[in-house]
């Protein structure tokens, strides 16, 4: 006596569950062994955001980093800002290293609150160069324009 074959719908659901389960095995192994696995944490690691009025009260020298595209930077930027974005990180980083001073505070900005480029660049600077005095400008370039029309 043989069992009746499963209905096609049931078979599809069963095979889908199989695929979903199979993918779980290497995913767990990757989370444990992958050399580039993400670091587990409950909250998103982020760089402190500051607004312009807070920055104007600082006495330390400032280094402005423009994390927007090269085209946006060429069009307009904060006076004295350095272009450093993830598109051309390797080419632009040496220029940042030339102007960097140990006592300076670094402020990174991108277009507005809707962009993440400033956080990405600030985090990368923190991670790769072990910099501590680094901040992200709240609302980015949009807030600069608002204060400096």
């Amino acid at each position, binding site marked *: 006596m043989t069992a009746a074959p499963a209905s096609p719908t049931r078979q599809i659901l069963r*095979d889908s569950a*199989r*695929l979903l389960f199979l*993918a*779980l095995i290497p*995913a767990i192994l990757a989370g444990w062994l992958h050399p580039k*696995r993400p670091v587990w944490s409950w909250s998103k690691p982020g760089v402190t955001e500051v607004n312009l009025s807070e920055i104007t009260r600082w006495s330390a020298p400032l280094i402005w980093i423009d994390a927007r595209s090269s085209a946006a930077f060429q069009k307009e930027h904060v006076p004295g800002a350095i272009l450093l974005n993830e*598109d051309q990180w390797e080419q632009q980083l040496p220029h940042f290293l030339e102007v960097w001073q140990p006592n300076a505070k670094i402020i990174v900005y991108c277009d507005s609150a809707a962009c*993440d480029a400033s956080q990405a660049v600030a985090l990368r600077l923190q991670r790769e160069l072990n910099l501590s005095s680094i901040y992200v400008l709240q609302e980015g370039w949009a807030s600069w324009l608002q204060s400096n029309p």
Partner: protein
Amino acid sequence: MAAIQPMKTIALWICRLLLGGTFAYAAVQKIAEPTAFATDIEHFRLLPHPLTLALALYLPWLELFCSAAVLARKYEPSALLLIALMCGVFFIALTSAWCRDLDINCGCFGHSNATSALPWAIARSLALGLLALLLFKQSPSVSSQ
């Protein structure tokens, strides 16, 4: 009528290769760089942080298994259905990012530094989802129902 059948078989194989190949390529790129992919998911601002990490590790493997299943024709209808579902989710996520005017990289093919055009990524996810549904409807176990 008999001449149409081989043409249809060839066309279906081309679609299978296109869909399976695209998903396999996308999966391999993301498997190689899970942290970068997690960052890309994070930029959509749709999920809590721990879930983005889990998804960055799990989703590429699901894509890889589904593409392998489509190309090997093993568990094919299920793999196609899962691909169509994934495309649906990508479509919703990309459209929401576009509506919120987010300037982000879609992360579709791993982390590239250039921000890709979201409307193009939306159209691509829609096209791939429809292709998966078309192949699903052509699967022997589904079309015989």
